[in-house]
């Protein structure tokens, strides 16, 4: 019932084929790229469907916003080319099923922070940055009622997203929120990129966490003491859906006096945390993920990073302890901002 807005003509007229040629995990030349993307568009099998690590990056690379990644995932499902082994897919799909009662709907008129599925990370939203901001999805028992479902892109299952997402949006809308600040940029990407791409209505305005933090920091500017730390940012896959907000990363760093280290895997060239890669169905996935992680961390180290900043809890879970082992402190972006205004972040170890 929801259909992806994909325009084959855009691909035909595309001169760069950035979607696949810039892929960091497949080595594809421009001609092959064009041929394969068209095959995919026509519903034919392509090695791309098999080899894709589902890193979302092509969504950002596409110069005309033609949703190559959403297309790939739709076709993986259509052609039964699952990116993961079946038990993992089933497990993943079952994970999002709420099982601890219905949510308590409190009406909030105006702005609110949406924790999405990360209610157990409430400790990350303390202090003056979040003062007075109502929060929805505070209760871990109810968190799956706020789960944006976009994770199923990694599972090759857009059908699950389309089936569940409208209900989730309804639940959020019941809170009567006009502006939803998304704790996770996957939620933000869902409401601002995926929903328009497949035609799902979103009755509220989604706000990117970084934009919110940037604005709050400006309000608290007088209280900022530059943190003077060298920082590497671990860009999550979902941020590819909101590349227009990516500039806030640098904006925030400037405000708080963090030095954004010069490195190879930065911005558009960011590397996946490896979380989704290691379980993939193909031969050698575990090693491939380990290799990506190793390169990523080596790059941070070489650039002299003291801190690795995360926005995505999944990246944090996958990479956090690894970067720490390499002498780089892992920290969430909001915590780094709290540090700058003289607060003691809960997650700062």
């Amino acid at each position, binding site marked *: 019932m929801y259909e992806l807005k994909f325009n084959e003509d855009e691909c035909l007229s595309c001169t760069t084929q950035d979607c696949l040629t810039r892929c960091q995990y497949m080595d594809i030349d421009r001609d092959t790229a064009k041929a394969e993307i068209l095959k995919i568009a026509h519903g034919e099998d392509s090695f791309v469907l098999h080899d894709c690590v589902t890193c979302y990056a092509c969504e950002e690379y596409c110069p005309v916003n033609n949703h190559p990644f959403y297309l790939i995932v739709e076709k993986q499902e259509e052609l039964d080319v699952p990116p993961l*082994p079946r*038990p993992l897919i089933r*497990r993943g799909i*079952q994970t999002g099923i709420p099982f601890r009662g219905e949510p308590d709907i409190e009406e909030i008129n105006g702005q609110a922070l949406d924790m999405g599925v990360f209610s157990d990370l409430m400790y990350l939203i303390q202090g003056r940055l979040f003062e007075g901001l109502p929060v929805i999805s505070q209760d871990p028992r109810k968190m799956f009622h706020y789960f944006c479902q976009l994770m199923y892109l990694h599972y090759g299952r857009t059908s699950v997203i389309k089936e569940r997402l409208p209900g989730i949006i309804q639940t959020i809308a019941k809170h009567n929120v006009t502006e939803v600040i998304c704790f996770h940029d996957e939620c933000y990407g869902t409401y601002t990129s995926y929903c328009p791409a497949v035609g799902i209505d979103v009755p509220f305005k989604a706000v990117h966490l970084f934009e919110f933090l940037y604005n709050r920091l400006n309000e608290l500017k007088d209280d900022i003491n530059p943190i003077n730390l060298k920082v590497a940012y671990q860009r999550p896959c979902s941020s590819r859906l909101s590349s227009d907000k990516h500039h806030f990363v640098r904006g925030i760093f400037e405000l708080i006096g963090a030095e954004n280290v010069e490195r190879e895997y930065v911005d558009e060239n960011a590397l996946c945390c490896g979380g989704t890669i290691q379980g993939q169905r193909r*031969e*050698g*996935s*575990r090693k491939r993920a380990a290799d990506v992680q190793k390169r990523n961390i080596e790059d941070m180290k070489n650039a002299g990073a003291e801190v690795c900043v995360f926005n995505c809890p999944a990246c944090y879970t996958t990479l956090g302890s690894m970067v720490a082992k390499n002498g780089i402190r892992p920290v969430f972006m909001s915590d780094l901002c709290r540090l700058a205004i003289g607060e003691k972040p809960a997650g700062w170890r």
Partner: protein
Amino acid sequence: MDSVYQALVDIVGQEHVSNRQEELFIYSYDLGTTEPHRPDYAVIPRTTEEIQEIVKLANKEKVPVVPLGGGLSLAGLAVPFRGGIALDLKRMDSILEVNEKARYAVVECGVSQGQLTSYLERNFPHLTHSEPGAPPTATIAGNVAIHGQGDLAQPYGFNSDMVNGLEIVLPTGEVCKFGSCSIGSGWYTQHPLPDVGLFLGWSGTTGIITKVSIRLFPSKKIRGVGQFVVEDEELVPEIMYKLTHTQMTEDVIAFSQAIPPFASGLQHFTINIVADSEKELEFKHEIVWDDTLGEYIRSGAGGFLGFRSGLQRPQVSKTSDWRKGGGFEYVGAIMPVETYPECYRRGRDISERHDIPYTVLGRCIGAAHAMMFSWTYAFNRADPETIRQAREALHETDDLALELHGTIWKPGLYGQKLVMERLDPNTLNLMKKIKQMLDPNGIMNPGNWEVS
């Protein structure tokens, strides 16, 4: 004045005996579904000598003695069915010796699993013991007394197979030692003297264990757990077989449960892998995940969920709370590994029939020589109906375990009856003789293993 009470006060002191309703209430309850029975006294001794005196008194007065450690058996093994003395042994909590070179520890009967774990971590970080899945308040002695297993069951077998020696207070009050310690040669082995081991698995009906020597094993610097998932339960036995073939795993468990939903209908493996270096770890990863399980990943039949460093204690008590009810009990049985699929399917049926979210688990013992398979039934402590349901499900499961050619582990009274019905009559007769010889007045944990 109650003369038994006064005599107990004389033995252990006023503060360590109670005949007040509060203590009698608490010690009447098992944490599972077993109906409570009030003891007449709760006693917390500190020494072997005190226990001797208590047992002698109990013989004289024909008062039952029900020893308990953590009191976490869940099968009602420390419920004072015939009243008497609830003997809480947790004050006997000294770690007496750790022999680093011969890798064993001698502990008093009240030493908890957590206490030994923590002691080894702080003082002998390269040694560990086989820690059961119970809460850390469970005791070492209580666990071997019921043939428990722990997280080293895959490489080394039952915890009770790791016993190097015991000190026992017999039901008649004498103290006996078993193993090399009995000839004063230290606590390093239970063999090769003539076997008089009549205490493990008897659930405290033949004597009170006061000291245990337990084997310790190498603890590597990196200890972690990897997870693997399959959808088809039929694959579990062969995967266990293949994993044990690698000799590179420490604990292999497969589980499936209705809640949380992600685990429903799937078979999850948790596989412990340990190493002293990244190099060793990567080598083992390759053998385990890539070489041994790779075929399932490639075929799409199995998925690797990642590896986490650090062993987390399973917090089983959380299971009790799925229904916001604070209670659960399980049937554990020692089963052939090949019965896993049947155990899972039939267990699910039983759960569903009794309206309880199913929870099953199979832990590999030895090189897949057997597994401990558990069927867990949660209940709501505040709702007697759910307790009844769980009790019924447990009984059906006892029947099932035997039907599938398994042997019930730490059976409650119902399971004991089933087992004894099937026991070889000559064995049963021998058990009867042993029990009569050791406990002529039948004071030790009466109700349990009563051969009629």
